C-alpha cells in the first residue's frame, strides 16, 4: 500500500524501494531509540527516587539528542592491536541484524516492509546476525573482558533462540502461518481474539488454551529478554564484572551504533511478542476510523496501537532491569536448558493436543 504510494509519488521502482526500506529507520528506529534511551533514564530515575535528566529541554527530553551529538563529535578510538577490519565491521553487522528484523514487522495493515510468508522465521534468522557482530566485536577488541563478554553473549543468544522458536512453533501450530501480517489479521476484532486469550478459536479449546498461552508468553518474553541482553540476563555487558562487555573498547559513533541497535532490538522483540500474542497492530476495542468512516485513519490508529503495545513491553523490560539483579552465566544456561526449554516442549505438546480437539 505504501509502496504503491511511493511509486506513484516518485515514478520509479528504485526510489520507491529505497524510500520503503529507509522508512522504518528514519520514521521509527531512530526516533524510537532516542525516545527509549530517554525513557529508560526517566523510568530508572523515578523508580530510584531521582529526577533523571532535567536540563536539556523540558524534563530533559532532548538529552539523548544532545548525547548523540556528543557521540558524533567524539574521537573514534581504535587501539593499535585491534583487528581493525573486524573491529569496524562489528557495529555495522550488529546494527544490520537489528535493522533487517524490522523489515518483516507489521507496523500497521498499510505498512509491512516486506510482507513475506516466512515473517517470523525471517526475524529469528536475521537477528542471529547480531551474534556474529558481537563475537566479532569481542574478538577484535583484543581485550579479555570483551572476549569473555562476547563468548557469553554468543552462548546466551544461541541458547535462548531455542525456547523462542519452540514458542513460535506453538503459535504456528494454532494459526498455521508464519506471516506476521496474516497473524495480526487473524487476531482482528477485539482483544479476546488475541492469541494470549486463545486466538480466534471458539468454545472449550479457547478456554483451555489460555493458561498455556500465558505460559508460552512468559517463556517467549523471558527468552527475548535474554536475546537482547537485558537484565536479568545482561551478563554479556555485566558492568560490574566485565566493565562493559563486548563494547568496552568502542567509542564515539561506533559505540552509538551498538547502543542504537540495543534499543532498536528491544523494540523488535517487543514487537514480535505483541504481534504473536497481543494482536499485533490490532486495536483491542475497535477503530475510530471505522466509527466515523474515515478509511485513512485506521492504519494510523493501527500504528498507534502497535507502538503502544511495543512500548509497553519495552517499559516492562526497563522495569525488570531496574528491579532485578543479574544471573550468573551458568545459572543463565540453567534457566534456559532446565526450565524454559522443557516447559516450552511440554507446552508445545499440550497445545498440539488441544488444537486437535
Amino acid at each position, binding site marked *: 500500500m505504501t509502496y504503491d504510494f511511493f511509486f506513484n509519488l516518485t515514478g520509479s521502482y528504485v526510489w520507491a524501494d529505497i524510500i520503503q526500506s529507509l522508512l522504518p529507520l528514519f520514521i521509527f528506529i531512530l526516533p524510537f531509540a532516542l525516545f527509549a534511551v530517554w525513557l529508560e533514564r526517566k523510568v*530508572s530515575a523515578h523508580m530510584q*527516587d531521582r529526577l533523571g535528566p532535567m536540563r536539556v529541554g523540558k524534563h530533559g527530553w532532548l538529552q539523548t539528542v544532545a548525547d548523540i551529538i556528543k557521540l558524533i563529535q567524539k574521537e573514534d578510538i581504535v587501539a593499535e592491536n585491534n583487528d581493525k577490519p573486524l573491529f569496524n565491521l562489528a557495529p555495522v553487522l550488529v546494527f544490520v541484524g537489528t535493522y533487517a528484523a524490522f523489515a518483516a514487522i507489521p507496523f500497521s495493515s498499510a505498512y509491512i516492509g516486506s510482507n513475506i510468508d516466512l515473517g517470523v522465521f525471517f526475524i529469528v534468522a536475521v537477528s542471529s546476525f547480531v551474534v556474529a557482530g558481537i563475537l566479532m566485536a569481542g574478538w577484535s577488541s583484543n581485550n579479555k573482558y570483551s572476549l569473555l563478554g562476547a563468548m557469553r553473549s554468543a552462548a546466551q543468544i544461541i541458547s535462548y533462540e531455542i525456547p523462542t522458536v519452540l514458542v513460535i512453533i506453538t503459535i504456528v501450530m494454532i494459526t498455521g502461518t508464519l506471516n506476521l501480517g496474516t497473524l495480526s489479521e487473524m487476531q482482528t476484532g477485539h482483544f479476546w481474539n488475541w492469541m494470549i486469550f486463545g486466538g480466534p478459536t471458539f468454545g472449550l479449546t479457547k478456554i483451555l488454551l489460555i493458561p498455556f498461552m500465558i505460559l508460552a508468553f512468559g517463556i517467549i518474553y523471558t527468552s527475548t529478554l535474554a536475546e537482547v541482553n537485558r537484565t*536479568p540476563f545482561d551478563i554479556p555487558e555485566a558492568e*560490574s*564484572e566485565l566493565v562493559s562487555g563486548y563494547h568496552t573498547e568502542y567509542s564515539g559513533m561506533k559505540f552509538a551504533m551498538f547502543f542504537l541497535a540495543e534499543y532498536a532490538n528491544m523494540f523488535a522483540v517487543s514487537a514480535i511478542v505483541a504481534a504473536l500474542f497481543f494482536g499485533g497492530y490490532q486495536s483491542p476495542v475497535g477503530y475510530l476510523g471505522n466509527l466515523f468512516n474515515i478509511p485513512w485513519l485506521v492504519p494510523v490508529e493501527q500504528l498507534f496501537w502497535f507502538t503502544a503495545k511495543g512500548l509497553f513491553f519495552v517499559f516492562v523490560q526497563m522495569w525488570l532491569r531496574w528491579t*532485578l539483579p*543479574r*544471573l*550468573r*552465566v551458568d545459572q543463565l544456561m540453567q534457566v534456559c536448558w532446565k526450565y524454559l526449554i522443557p516447559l516450552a516442549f511440554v507446552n508445545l505438546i499440550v497445545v498440539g493436543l488441544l488444537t486437535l480437539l
Partner: protein
Amino acid sequence: MALKTEQMVLNMGPQHPSTHGVLRLELELEGEIITKVTPHIGYLHRCFEKHTEAMTYPQVIPYTDRMDYLASMYNEFGYAVAVERLLGIQVPERVDFIRVIMGEFQRIASHLVAIGTYGLDIGAFTPFLYCFRDRERILSLFEMTCGARLLYNYIWVGGLSHDLHPDFVRSAKEFVTYFRPKIKELNDLLTNNKIFIDRTANIGILPKETAINYGISGPNLRASGFKWDLRKDDPYSIYNKFDFDIPVGQGSMGTVGDCWDRYYVRILEMEESLKIIEQALEILPEGDVTSAIPKRIKPPVGQVYSRVENPRGELGYFIISNGQVNPFRIKVRGPSFVHLGVMNELCKGHMVADIIAILGSIDIVLGEVDR
C-alpha cells in the same frame, strides 16, 4: 587426545567498576573458573602510620577519618578510646552516650553502603540508590552535629568537638521511625529475591575455624556462625548498658558462612543498631562534653592495644608512646586489610562473576586496606 589448554590471567583492576576502590586482583582462570586470586594492594597507600609519627595526638584524628572513609566516626571512636586508655582518663557519661549514638548511626550508614554496593555488584541498581538515599539522611544528622558529612573530626580524645545540636534528638528519633519500614522494603526488593539468593547462597563459604585463623572479625565472622561481637565480648565505652542481640549467620538460604549470610547479618545488624540508638536517645544524660578534654596530651611511656567493633570488624589501634607529644608508633589493624587476605581461600573454584559477589560480601574499604 587432550586439547592443549592454557590458563588465562585476567587483571581485575586497579580500574574496575566493582573492586570498591583501587584494588588489583590477579585472577588465574581456567575458562571462567578461578584457580588462584592474588590481591595486589597499596594503590591508595597514604602513609598513615608514618604521618602519625610527626603529629600530635589530636592531629592524628583527621587522619584516622581518612582510613575507613565510610565509617569515619568509628575510626575516631576507636582512636579516642585507645588514647584515653593510654592516658587513663574517664570521659563524662554524656560523651559516651553520644559516641555510641554516633557510632551506631555510622554503623547503619556503613552497612547501607555495603548492602547497596553489594546489590550493585550483583546487578541490581535500584537498592543501591535506596540505600544511599537513607544514608544521606544519616549524613545530614552528622552534618547538623559537627558540620561535616564524611570526615568528621568529631570524637576527640576525652570528649567531643561539639555538643549535640538542639534538634538532634528529635531528628534522630524521626530517622529511626522512618528507617524501620525501609529495611523491609529492602528485603522485598533484594534480600529475598530468588535471583539474588541464587547468586549469593553457597558462594564463598567461610567456615568458622578458617575465619578465626584468618583473623576475620565483625559481620563476616558472625556470618560464619560464631557469636563474637566486641561490643558484648570485650565491652568498651558503655555498650554493656544496652540491650541488643548479636545476629549470626544461620545458613538459611544455603550453607553457614556464605555470601548471603554475610549480607543478611548486616541487614539484621542495622535493626540492632536502631535498637541501641533508641535506648540511648531515651536515657541520654546531661553534661558537658568538652570538660574532660586534656589541654596537652602527653601520655606516659607505655603501650596499648585497644580495639573496637567497627562496622567492618575489629578495628584495633596499637599505640606506643615514648612520653612525647607525638606517638612513637601507631599501628592499625584494619578489618578490611585482614579480610582481604582471605580472598584466595574464598574464591577458589568459583567463577569470575562470583569474585564480585565475594569481594562485595566481605565489604572492604580500600582506604583502610592501604592506609
